[in-house]
């Protein structure tokens, strides 16, 4: 069958953020070869410029939204939101990386290029409207992230982290691909809306479609680290460099959730009653495993790793609600989670010192006396992770539970809320350390935070507070954009 594709300028405009990021990523790679050793950090600045331009391109593309390249991608509020989110995540992570890489003696252009390439994949995932694009986006994003996880080549933990992530990640992607193949075999199309249309027609194929959905659930479940596919997350977050952990727990996760929701809320909506109980159980298991395992941790990065599992569980509650309110709640949740988590990881990377010697909870002891401002900002992130009002974390939890109750998920709501109260226990260990203990060796030798780090921490904190005090703006946008998934 001859394929005739009609491509217009609008198609390119809607794909412009990805194009910009790719151009800048390649440019950083090329300049890496010619830049002198002392100038490598300027490549990071170039990457920041690239992200800023991509951000503007994203907004421009939104003004002329719609499907592009024969409905391979679709640009609307939903996609634009997630593109913007992952771009902000990338921006903040690069800001925290400057001083980190300097300290570890690993200042290279590749690092920034890899972040840009990873962002390309995540942007594609945000707007993908076809299972082929889903696969391509997931692979671009993942392969770059695998390398980032093991970026400090001489570090044993980094290598372990990368290897684990890579092996398990590839395995999960295989599941996803197998699911895609089944779906294509069943309905003869990879377009998300087309799949929905055909699934909505007939009962005979729906049992097998349910199986295909389960296979894809495994693939996505791994990427967003939900139980029972969460085992890799604490090891990988602990082993990877702190800014990379911040990046992995916020960006790729948000993008994977974006496509997870899109596929399940659009394509598999007709067979909703087959998967919603599975998601119910996974949401509960994820919260319980994440929170209870976190109770026992002494390493802050590992603790944040488990906490990120627990937070994935809360987002999954929003999917269980399978309503537009649920989608909007998940969008809001991922945005505020990204900000508070990057902030927390940024402070950890600051205190960790060379070779990440100080990443135990007790190493934060006395931070409140040594660096009152940094400590206060960390406290804001931690209270937001707990879900205390006037922070983004609270409103996020609130919307998720509201969505769940609107869909009459009373027990899941109550159990989720009790989980969030139990979680307070381990988060408070951080607060106890920074405010209620005397300074230890880690904090007494602490150099002041670098400018980039400070900007990243302040921006995350202000964002977290803004979402907590004036949630209206973002909430209107997400509840408007969530209509795309119906």
């Amino acid at each position, binding site marked *: 069958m001859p394929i005739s594709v009609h491509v217009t300028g609008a198609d390119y405009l809607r794909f412009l953020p990805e194009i910009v990021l790719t151009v800048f990523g390649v440019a950083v790679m090329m300049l890496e070869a010619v830049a002198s050793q002392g100038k490598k950090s300027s490549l990071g600045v170039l990457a920041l410029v690239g992200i800023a331009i991509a951000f503007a391109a994203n907004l421009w593309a939104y003004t002329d939204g719609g499907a592009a390249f024969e409905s391979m991608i679709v640009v609307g509020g939903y996609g634009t939101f997630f593109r913007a989110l992952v771009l902000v995540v990338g921006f903040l992570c690069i800001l925290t990386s400057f001083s980190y890489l300097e300290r570890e003696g690993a200042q290279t252009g590749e690092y920034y290029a890899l972040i840009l390439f990873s962002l390309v994949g995540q942007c594609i995932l945000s707007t993908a409207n076809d299972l082929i694009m889903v696969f391509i986006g997931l692979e671009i994003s993942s392969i770059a992230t695998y390398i980032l996880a093991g970026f400090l080549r001489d570090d044993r933990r980094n290598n372990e982290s990368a290897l684990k992530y890579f092996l398990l990640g590839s395995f999960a992607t295989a599941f996803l691909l197998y699911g895609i193949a089944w779906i294509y075999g069943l309905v003869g199309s990879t377009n998300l809306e087309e799949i929905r249309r055909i699934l909505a027609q007939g009962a005979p194929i729906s049992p097998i479609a349910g199986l295909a959905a389960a296979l894809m659930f495994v693939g996505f479940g791994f990427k967003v680290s939900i139980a029972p596919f969460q085992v890799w997350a604490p090891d990988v977050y602990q082993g990877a460099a702190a800014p990379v952990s911040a990046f992995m727990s916020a960006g790729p996760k948000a993008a994977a959730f974006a496509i997870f929701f899109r596929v399940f809320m659009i394509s598999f909506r007709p067979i909703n009653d087959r998967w919603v109980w599975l998601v119910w159980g996974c949401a509960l298991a994820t919260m319980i495993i994440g929170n209870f395992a976190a109770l026992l941790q002494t390493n802050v990065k590992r603790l944040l790793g488990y906490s990120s599992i627990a937070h994935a569980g809360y987002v999954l509650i929003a999917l269980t609600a399978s309503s537009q309110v649920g989608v909007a709640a998940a969008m809001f949740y991922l945005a505020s989670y990204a900000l508070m988590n990057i902030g927390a990881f940024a402070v950890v990377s600051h205190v960790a010192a060379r070779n990440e010697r100080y990443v135990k909870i007790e190493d934060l002891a006395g931070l409140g006396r040594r660096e009152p401002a940094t400590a206060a900002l960390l406290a804001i992130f931690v209270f937001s992770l707990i879900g205390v009002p006037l922070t983004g974390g609270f409103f996020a939890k609130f919307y998720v539970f509201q969505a769940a109750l609107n869909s009459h998920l009373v027990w899941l709501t109550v159990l989720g809320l009790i989980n969030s109260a139990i979680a307070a226990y381990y988060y408070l260990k951080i607060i106890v350390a920074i405010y209620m203990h005397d300074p230890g060796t880690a904090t007494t030798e602490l150099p002041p935070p670098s400018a980039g780090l400070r900007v990243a921490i302040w921006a995350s904190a202000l964002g977290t507070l803004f979402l907590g005090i004036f949630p*209206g703006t973002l909430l209107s946008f997400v509840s408007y954009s969530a209509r795309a998934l119906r």
Partner: protein
Amino acid sequence: MNLLAATLAVPLIGFFVVLFVPRGKAPFFAALTATVVAFFVSLGLVAPAAASGSQFTSVVNASWVDTPGLRIRFHLGIDGISLWLVLLTTLLVPIAVWISRTMIKERQKNFFALLLLFEFGIIGVFSALDLFVFYVFWEVALVPMYLMAGGWGGSRRGPAAVKFFVYTMLGSVLMLASIIYLHSEAGTFDYVEIMNAIGSGRVTLAPSQQMLLFLGFFAAFAVKVPIFPLHTWLPDTYTEAAMPATFLLAAVMSKMGAYGLIRYCLTITPAAAHRCATWVAVLAIIGIIYGALIALMQSNIKRLLAYSSISHLGFVVLGIFTLSQQGADGAVYQMIAHGISTGALFLLAGYLEERRGSLEIADFGGIATSAPGLATAFMVTLFASIGLPALCNFIGEFLVLQGAALTKFSWAAWAATGVILSAAYMLWMYQRTFFGKANERAGTFTDLSARDWAPVMPLILLMVWLGSYTQSFMPPIDSAAAHLLEQTNMNNQYRVELAHPVPSQLAEAARAH
């Protein structure tokens, strides 16, 4: 400018000022100025609230979040019940600032900032008329108190404060579930709108729904009061926290729970409140007797006062769940009286601790001779606390017992043993501390200075005023409580007689109203 908004804004402004002034004396003066100004501003709330009694006055109503599906209004107001609780707060926080100057030895600036944030939260809790806003203030008050209790005080303060936070949080999340559930039923968070909707029959909550809602709210309030058997966080937290924090925990924060019970549990879920009244009253009576018995065995003054607080708060809860006018009046009166008398007791205990470096009863003895002023002040406060006539606690406890007797006589009989026991443990403690042979190990014991008297005097005056001239305080409480009970009974009746729906004209009229 709206005085309630001003009362709320002043501590918040003070908080930011304290954050940005340099260390040293400046934070103290900034905090003192802000809290004193807040107190004088709050005095302006009295006249309108006293005039109207049952209606909400000084109302603030502004839009906070306005999106389709979620509308939250920043809605605050004061009636006869919240009036005195707001005033109690604005009176006691400056006193806490005053005593912190000597009792808090390090990082004073942080402490003052937290103190102001705490005041902001508490005033919000007592005046919120939107359940969402109420929850926000509820938690905003919790965080600074957690940081104060955990940051300053005894060596085991960290774990004690975490226990306090997690306990409270477990209760509050269940309240949050109830609030969201109520929103999905009534379509609004606004307390006044919800009451109108229930009153006019637009929203009806089935008994099973009411029970769920009631239990969610009750969990949060019962932990905060605390009601037996949820009290286990209290002795540790009270004992380990620094004295100014304990002072506020006992005098102000314990009223949050009781206020929630009377404001929300009775009116929103009247059927469930009626159904559970007996159980709650029994728990309250167990708390009264249990707290008093344990207090009898304590060797540490601070721990003794903590358990006595559990006992006294039992009266408040009992009064509320007699569901009678006397009981409710007495409960609210007892909240104020308890705030002042227990606050003063902790304050004086703080002076004892400053002078001796310990609060073990065994370390004291015979100090009345060297510190007659302190002994006298302690004596008066102690008499107020055990409910001697003409002092503040007498009125509250008497009314509560009267209400209890009217509802069920055996309740009053059991609860009255608590009064006797409180006289026993208090007087025994006083005797061992102030009389008898002077402790040899101890050096000289200085009496109260003018600076120490300053916060004590107004409290003693208030104990006498509250105890001897109830007319100044009772009318607004009485009319607000009457209105509240009327709503409770009407909504309960209406629910019971659901078989005969209200004629539509009546519902229409209510809507128009």
